[in-house]
Each structure stands twice: as C-alpha cells, then as structure tokens.
C-alpha cells in the first residue's frame, strides 16, 4: 500500500508539471493582460513600464523557466492584478469554497440516499416516480438559472434568506475559518449550497435507487427477510451498507468537482471563494492565479482519488490496493 501511495504521488507531480505548462502557454497565447489592466489614458511609456514590471517583455521560455525555478521554491508568483502572492490569495479564499462544497455534499447525502432508497424499494409508487422526475430536473436545469430562481423565491418574494454573500462572523475550528457556527452563517450558505448540490443530489438519488433495486433481490436480503428480521433492520443494515460503495466512490470524485466547479454558483451568490477568484482572474488574464489555482485543483483531485481508493478498500474487504503493472 505504501508503494501504491508513493507511486500515485509521483504521478501527481508529473501531471501538475504538464498541466502548468499547458495552462501557462495557453494564457500566454491568449494575449497581453496589460491592455485591460492599464488605465485608458496611460501613454505608451507607461504601458511599456507595466509590461516590464510584470516580466511580460521576456520571451515565453524565459518566463516559463523563471516560473518553474520560483515554483520549485514554493513561490507561484504574484498576482498581476492584486500584487499579492497568488498562492496566498487562493488559500485565503479556499475555506469559503470548502465550506460551501461540504454543505452541498451534506445536502446531497442527507437527502439523496434516503430518497434513492425509498424510490428503489417501491419503484412503482407514485412518490417514487415523483422523486425520479425530480432527479431528471435536477440533472438538466442549468445551475445559473436555478440559482437566480432560488434568490427570487426565497430572498426577494419570501424574504426568508439573504440573497448573496457569506455570513459575517467567522470562527476558527482547528485553525480553519468557518462561518457555519452561527445561524446567520447557515442562512447565507443554504441557498448556494442547495444550488450547488442539486446536480449531485440527483446523481446520488439515482445511484442509491439503482443500488437498492439490485440489492433487494440478492439472496442475503431474501435470507434476512426469511429469518424474520424487521424491515428497518433489513434496510438500514443489509441494504444500505451494500449500496454505499458506488455512492462513496462517486461522491469522493464529485467532491473535487464541487470545489473546482463551484464557479457558477459562487458568481451568482457573490460567494467569496476560489471559483469567483478564478473567473475574475480569467477575465483579467491574471496568469499566476490561474496557474496556481489549477495546480491546487489537480492536487486536490489526486488526493481525493487516493482517499476514495482507500475508503473503498475499507468498505469492501474484497478490494486490495495495488497498481496495475504497466
């Protein structure tokens, strides 16, 4: 298992390196950020000075080599826009996104699994059909539209929840800042989390339903029933445990997606996380931030994959972790 983990980490390093090259050259090709950064009335000398101070007057290979040398020392460069270390900018914003993603994950699990199990146990009941139709909607409605509808309904019409932003009070739990310790924090996170969770919720519901349909016909469930166990015990112990494996796999991988693709939700709800930072940075071609962001996301995905593999082996003792030999 140790060898497996080490090998995985080495692969990750290679992926990060390739990715940094692709993104770096991609943003380099798109254009020159100074054209949108400088003031309209700046003269040519001023423009040249900005280009020089950002190091953009150098040829591509020099810029990239300089980036790599600094990156090896843990310095991913300074944001063109904010003149602060790109890594610091991202790490400052990461907790807000994590908070949102975790809230969304909780919503998908807490609602998705029971709904899926219910729909799987009684597939022909009207409520099951209702659940499954709902999940199709959850899959197919565009996030930005749902987000705006949520704001219109719950903030503008009903006035129950705040429309945008994150809770004011930040508490530190084991060094991580979170707004979720106050009611105000939850009232802010609820709408964006539901919006972000909608897609995952549908996925989990469908997975849980499919799993349940398969498992209820298995011999061990029939046997459990034949033994005269109560419905509760059959469902909660025998069915639930066995449908969890695919659900955990998908959720683990999807958590990375929640963090990486919270862009739309964060923009609509003005949530101060990394998704919003990324969109702003792409708009202004803030290359150091874009590159640093994607490097962190790649590392996150690699880490999550690893975690999923390990959880998998714990949940299903038949699975042994080993590399597929080339």
């Amino acid at each position, binding site marked *: 298992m140790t060898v497996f983990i080490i090998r995985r980490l080495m692969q990750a390093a290679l992926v990060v390196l390739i990715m940094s090259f692709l993104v770096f050259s991609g943003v380099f090709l*798109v*254009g*020159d*950020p*100074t*054209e*949108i*950064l*400088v*003031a*309209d*009335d*700046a*003269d*040519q*000398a*001023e*423009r040249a*000075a*900005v280009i020089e*101070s950002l190091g953009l007057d150098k040829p591509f290979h020099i810029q990239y080599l300089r980036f790599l040398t600094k990156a090896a020392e843990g310095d991913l460069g300074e944001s*063109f*826009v*904010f*003149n*602060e270390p790109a890594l610091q*900018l991202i790490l*400052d*914003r990461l907790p*807000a996104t994590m908070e949102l993603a975790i809230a969304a994950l909780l919503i998908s699990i807490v609602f998705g699994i029971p709904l899926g199990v219910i729909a799987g146990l009684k597939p022909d009941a009207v409520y099951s059909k209702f659940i499954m139709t709902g999940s199709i909607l959850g899959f197919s409605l565009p996030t930005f539209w749902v*987000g*705006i509808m949520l*704001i*219109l309904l719950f*903030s*503008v019409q009903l*006035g129950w929840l*705040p*429309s*945008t*932003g*994150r809770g004011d009070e930040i508490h530190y739990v084991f060094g991580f800042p979170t707004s979720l310790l106050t009611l105000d924090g939850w009232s802010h996170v609820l709408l964006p989390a539901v919006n972000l969770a909608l897609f995952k919720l549908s996925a989990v519901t469908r997975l849980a339903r499919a799993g349940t349909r398969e498992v209820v016909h298995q011999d061990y469930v029939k046997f459990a029933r034949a033994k005269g166990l109560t419905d509760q015990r059959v469902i909660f112990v025998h069915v639930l445990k066995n449908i969890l494996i695919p659900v955990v796999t998908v959720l683990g991988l999807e958590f990375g997606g929640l963090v990486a693709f919270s862009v739309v939700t964060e*923009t*609509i*709800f*003005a949530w*101060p*996380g990394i998704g*919003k*930072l990324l969109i*702003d940075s*792409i*708009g*202004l*071609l803030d290359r150091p931030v874009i590159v640093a962001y994607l490097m962190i996301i790649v590392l996150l995905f690699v880490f999550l994959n690893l975690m999923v593999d390990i959880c998998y082996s714990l949940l299903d003792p038949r699975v042994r972790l080993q590399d597929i030999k080339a």
Partner: protein
Amino acid sequence: MSFIRRLGVTAVAMAALAGPAMAEDITIGIRSEPSSMDPYFHNLGPNNAMIGHVFARLVDFDSNQQLFPSIAESYKAIDDTTWEFKLRQGVKFHDGTDLTVDDVIYSFERADGYTGGNSSFRIYTKGKTLTKIDDHTLHISTEKPYPLMPNDLTTVMIMSSEAKGTGAPDTNKGIEASDFNDGTATMGSGPYKFVEWKKGDRIVLEKYEDYVGPLSQPWDKVTFRFIPSEPARVAALLAGDVDMIDNVPTSDIATLQKNKDVSLSDGVSNRVIYLHLDQWRDNSPFVTDKDGNPLDKNPLKDARVRKAISMMINRPAIVERVMEGVALPAGQLLPDGFFGRSPNLKPEKYDVAGAKKLLAEAGYPDGFGLTIHGPNDRYINDAKIAEAIGQLLSAAGIPTKVVTMPKNVYFSRASKGADGKPEFSFVLVGWGSGTGEASSPLKSLLATHDPDKGWGASNRGRHTDPKVDALIGEALATVDDAKRGQLLAEATDIAIGENQGIIPLHYQVNTWATRAGLTYNSRTDERTLAYDLKPAN
C-alpha cells in the same frame, strides 16, 4: 420586507434615544472590486472611487466632473508655469496627525516613483516640481505653461508620510500594496476610515469624526459588497440585503421603474462608445470586396467613405432598441456640459441615400465587404451594438461580418496584434475622459500615434493630421480657459467633423438603483461613492 423591519426598529430606537443622532449604516452592492487599497498601485475606476473615501485629494471632481478644492482650500496660477495651492487648516489624518505640505510632497514622490503596479499616476505627476513654501502653502511648477494642473491633481490622493515607519529609501517608500489592504498603511484624511477588506466579499468603512473638508458624511458605517452577477445584484437590492446598487442592467430598468420600493437615478457618463477605422494601411486585412477577396486599396482611408459609414448608422434606433433608451446619441468625444466640446458637431443623421451617394463619389458605388470587431463583456450591451451596426451597414450596401470576443482577448489584439500593430480594420471601443475635458481623448484617440511623445496611445485607427496635432499641442500650453476650450473645440471639429477620425455612436448612461427613501447623485465619472448617496428629504 427587511427594509420595513429596519424602519420600524429605527423608529423605536429613535423614540428611546430621543436626541442624539442615530447610527446610520448603509450597504452598497457594487459590480467591481478594487484591485488594491494602495492609492498609487493601479489607476483604475473602481480603485479611485473606493480609495477616494479614505484618502482625500487636493482638488476633486463633483458629480459633473467640475473641479472643487478639497484638501486645498484655494488654488491659482501665480504665473505661467507656477500654481499656488493653499491647504485647508486643521486637516488631520485618521491617526490624528496633521496634514501638511510635507505629506503632499511625500505622496507625489511615492506616486511618481511607484514601481510595480498596473498603471501608475506618473502621467499626472511627471514634469511637476513641488516646492514647500510653508506648512500650508505649496507651489507646483512646470517647465512649460500647464493649464491642466488642477485636473491632474484630482487624481493623486494624499497619504500620510508617517503611515508606516518613516519610509525606506526605495521608490515605494518601503510600503507594499498589501500594507494598504490590511489597513496598516491605509491612513488618509478622507471622510471615511478603512475598517476591513474581506477579499471577494466586502470592504467596510467607518465615518471619520474629525474630518475637515467639503465632502459630506451622511453615513456612520458603509459596507461595500461585491456582487458581479447582474441579476444577483438587482435581487440583492429587491431582497433588501443592500441599500443601493450600481450598474443596473438596462434590461431591468423598465421593471424597476414600476417598483415603488426602488428609486433609480441615472446620468450621462463621460464615456463615449465609438468606432475606429483603419486609416493607415493600404491593404487592410478585414476590408474586402463583396465576395470576400482582398482589395487592392483600402477604402477606409477616404474620409468620404468613413462619413458614409457614419451616415448608415441609425443612432436613435440603437439607443432605443439596443440600449433600451438608456444612452444618448453622440456626435463627438464628450456629452453636453464638458469642457472643450465643439458647438458645431451634432450626432450624424441617419441617411442611407446620402451615404450611398458619398460612396459612389468616393469610387465605391457597389460598396465593399467589412468586418467589425468588438468586445462582448466590456461596455453596456457591447456585443449587441456591434451586431446592430453589422445589420445596418449590410442593409445599406456594405456587407459586414460581426466578430465579438471577451475583452481579455479583444483589447490586446485590437491594440497590437502579432506584429505589434492594431490587428483589426473596424473596431468598436469606448473611452471615458478621466480628466473631464476634451484634451485627454483627443490626445489618446486622435493625435498621431507617437510613442516618444506619449500621444495616440489608443489611436487604433492611426488617424493622423498635423493640424489636429498642432491644435492639441497649442491647447495643452494655453492657460487661458476660454482660449483653450476654443482650441480643443477646433481640433475636435477637424478630427471628427472633417476627417471622421472616429465615428462616435453614443454616450453611455449609467444607472444606480436605491431603495425608496434614498437618492444617489449620479456621476459622470461612473464612480459609486457613499457620500453622494443621501436620504431623500
């Protein structure tokens, strides 16, 4: 809902206190987050607006970009090359220290020498020598007569020379942009104190009790929240989460007007949306014959062709349909009321028959093919304007393709393509006059492109006319206001009226929306300022 609740709470509290003024807090939802709180890091609209709450300037602009003295109590030109500024007595920085001429000189040194940053204020500080006469008297001299002195001084904000230690010898005085972002060095003398900046979320300011100066302080605590998404910003206002928003999308204006809980204020801005045409290449890459084959010469070099194109554009229709009525048709660089405008230039009339006649005169009776390039996320409805122009020209006999792209790709290609020259032939761009008068757009858009002189930096069509250059040069050295205004008007008459160096389309109108009971004094410089937001009697 929450607004009514808030009113109720206020009423109860007022009754209980009966006397001392109530704490009035205000939350403003704005589209763009500043990139720094360092006053000299980035000469950018959102920065200048936000930082201007905390750091005052010697001279400032009112909502119509008319000058008024701020830290300076009065100013005048004492001879052709020297201006005298008398500072207001009793102005204190937020840490309680006095503001003197030393602080002004310190601020200018840091602004002038700033290294790094994304466009410094050097264009406004260069060539100026500051001399201290006494603690409250300052002389600023230039080599040649320089009439725009007060205008330039509306840009540089004054910081305390003791904000963070005594300052290192380096050009930035040993203070990093981040020292301003966390409040360490954010020590100005403006009406509001900096409290905190939660990146991506909000900036909080607090009333400075000992403020001395002409700006008003209607609120005790001001929270600026950054809400870039258009519908979310409107929703935040409707939900009562914010008291005011800026940049109201044109598509929402009609609905908001009917809403009794919302009041709108709009005003024309200093930003003109215009078209620039390639006037320097003999073979322009995006000008073709009607079948898309290259032409042997560039018709856009002929002023008659440019005028014909201008006449094919139905400005009132664009304003009515595309801009939903929220814009003003333009005939020159600045709307009514600005300094240096020409009295002669009106928006070109929509006249297809006349345009065709002009085209025939110029030798293109059958027209030619064209491609218009424009951004799709920079100006209000920019992509839709480009499409409308494409359709108008195509209908009038110049088949026009429309290509729009995100601003981050567009501007670097429009200014310098692969070979360092503007890549496109026919571009849609906008220009806001930061100095509030005509010399800045004339110098940047219509003067001959000349990197050594620093002129024509945004002249993407490379319009050139020695007469115009001479007039601009003369105007920039004429201290007498009336005469300078005339020279600028004359330059505009030639550059736009005769040469059609650019084709002005419309002036943008900006809209702010507040909850009922508040009113915002709309500003031509597009800034969103807490002190211009007041309770409606």
